[in-house]
């Protein structure tokens, strides 16, 4: 058997080294080793890392730089052109308060953009195999054409919540988690993907995001108000045209602030509402907990009163990152990176050899996983029950996508139908959405009146194969344009 190979790595790991802080990579001196890579270098999601894994952002960061430039330029102009006059004529407290707000805005922006939003690491091959087995057992022998729907139901606080299986990450998503198709990660308590901050907004950075938009609202209003004051005061003294000549930047500032105020203040108000009712943008848009869905429908996560909800969201405990970005990749076998915090993995390499015997196909999957989102039409990897991957059949794009709100009840049914399509080529083109979370949603679909300045990667349709890479790019482009 595989005893020999299995025993050796075990000998190398000293059990006494286990601690949540140590980061000693496994030593295998008798094997030819490539230089040790850090886990962020082998991260399967679509993220960019900087500073050797300390900073984590989404792949498209162009709009983030725009945000930064807008804030820096507008504030810079304010401090340079308006503050001297204002501090002399009114009070020097104005630039001081402005400065404090400015620093706070930048701080929260960087914190939101650079931190891990709460990414769930992908399942190890062992876990994935175990889940598959459980699903098979739970559903009996799948009778030919209809692989079972991959959902689990759980009752939380009296409400029935469906947990969906993520085909990319091979896990059952916890409640409130969602898969961001732009970053190709499952994120806990997924709110939305924000191109303005260049990152997803999830459990770990939601409070920073909220403080960012709140402080930015104050900063915008502050600058707007005082630039207007400056222009008025100056005009009284020197005339309007002279004022414009002396301080041309003020015009630019007023314009930028005027247009920002509506979207940013509106967004702050929207998120204040979300926080006070303990919902995510995702849930609100889908109307998951709205009373329109049914009489007994309520939000099971809410703590009951506004104050507790706010405290929980803003001052609650901050969970640590589950992906160990700066740890070292330990095994030489390809597998989804186990999320260690440096704990020596005496089990990991053994699992590879063990699983190699059991499910050889799973070994090769991780290599393909990262491509999955790009070429989802690639026919299934051949693993058990993987028939739910999108088909390479005759892809027809979804026509209209208004039914975000009925996603929950529709999903199991659709899954079955679309899985069935693998074997019969029915032309139910609009039955293609298997894992709606895994598609970027064309921005024009947002039904709710939330301010424009955001894209929400939420339940959209899973765009079939051949059009997908082109479609994804164009959608991403749309996503950016729509928020400008």
């Amino acid at each position, binding site marked *: 058997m595989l005893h020999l190979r299995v025993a050796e790595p075990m000998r190398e790991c000293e059990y006494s080294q286990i601690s949540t802080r140590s980061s000693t990579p496994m030593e295998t001196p008798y094997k030819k080793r490539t230089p040790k890579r850090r886990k962020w270098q082998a991260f399967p999601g679509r993220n960019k890392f900087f500073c050797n894994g300390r900073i984590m952002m989404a792949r498209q960061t162009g709009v983030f730089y725009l945000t930064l430039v807008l804030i820096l330029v507008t504030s810079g102009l304010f401090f340079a052109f308006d503050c001297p006059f204002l501090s002399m004529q009114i009070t020097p407290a104005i630039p001081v308060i402005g400065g404090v707000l400015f620093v706070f805005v930048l701080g929260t922006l960087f914190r939101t953009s650079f931190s891990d939003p709460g990414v769930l690491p992908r399942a190890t091959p*062992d*876990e994935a195999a175990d889940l598959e087995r459980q699903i098979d057992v739970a559903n009996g022998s799948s009778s030919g054409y209809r692989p079972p729907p991959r959902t689990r139901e759980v009752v939380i606080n009296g409400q029935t919540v469906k947990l969906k299986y993520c085909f990319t990450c091979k896990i059952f998503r916890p409640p409130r988690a969602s898969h961001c198709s732009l970053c190709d990660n499952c994120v806990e308590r997924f709110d939305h993907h924000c191109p303005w901050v260049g990152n997803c907004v999830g459990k770990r950075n939601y409070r920073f995001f909220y403080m960012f938009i709140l402080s930015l609202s104050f900063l915008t209003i502050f600058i707007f108000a005082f630039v207007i004051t400056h222009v008025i005061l100056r005009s009284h003294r020197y005339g309007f045209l002279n004022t414009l000549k002396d301080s041309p930047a003020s015009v630019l500032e007023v314009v930028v602030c005027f247009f920002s105020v509506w979207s940013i203040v509106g967004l702050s108000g929207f998120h204040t509402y979300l926080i006070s009712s303990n919902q995510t943008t995702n849930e609100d848009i889908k109307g998951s907990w709205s009373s329109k869905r049914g009489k007994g429908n309520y939000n099971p996560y809410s703590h009951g009163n506004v104050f507790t909800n706010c405290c929980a969201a803003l001052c609650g405990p901050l969970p640590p990152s589950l992906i160990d970005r700066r740890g070292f990749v330990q095994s030489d076998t390809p597998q989804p990176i186990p999320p260690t915090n440096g704990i020596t*993995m005496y089990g990991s390499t053994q699992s590879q050899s063990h699983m190699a015997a059991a499910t050889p196909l799973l070994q090769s999957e991780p290599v393909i996983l990262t491509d999955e989102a790009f070429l989802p039409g690639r026919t299934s990897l051949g693993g058990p029950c993987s028939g739910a991957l999108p088909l390479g059949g005759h892809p027809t794009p979804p026509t209209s996508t208004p039914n975000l709100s009925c996603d929950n009840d529709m999903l199991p049914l659709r899954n079955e139908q679309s899985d069935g399509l693998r074997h019969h080529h029915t032309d139910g083109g609009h039955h293609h959405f298997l894992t709606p979370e895994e598609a970027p949603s064309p921005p024009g679909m947002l039904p709710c009146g939330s301010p424009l300045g955001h894209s929400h990667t939420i339940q959209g349709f899973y765009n079939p194969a051949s059009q997908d890479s082109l479609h994804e790019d164009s959608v991403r482009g749309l996503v950016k344009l729509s928020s400008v």
Partner: protein
Amino acid sequence: MATEFHNLQELRHSASLANKVFLQRDYSDGTTCRFQTKFPSELESRIERPLFEDTVKRLNIYYAEAEKMGGQSYLEGCLACATAYLIFLCMETRYEKVLKKIGRYIQEQNEKIYAPRGLLITDPIERGMRVIEISIYEDRGSSGSCSGSSSTSGSSAR
């Protein structure tokens, strides 16, 4: 076939991984971290049910403590916000402290209870807090097959 190991080193040298059991998360309480306490059938011949359930319950208690929202965590949150989160350069969050405690607890449980029975618990943080992974080892001396009616090595731990 009794699989008795007297310590972890012995486990290392003479055992091979036979199987892994995964304890999934229990979401019935919302998104807080809890693991199912259902006793897996594969462990029936390996460890006594009360011992096992005790371990899992203890872990659940620790995780609840880490995520508890009370005066202390609010204070920590407000203080952190006031210092622009720079305070975490000097001290670690309560959550991290509890995670360390959990790591030590698991290590201790492994050494005292599980390794002598040919089992090993993996810290859930290594698995993204999704599962508690329990590895089942077989004695290499036995001929490769799963332990059939192994009399549990309950006596060895006492």
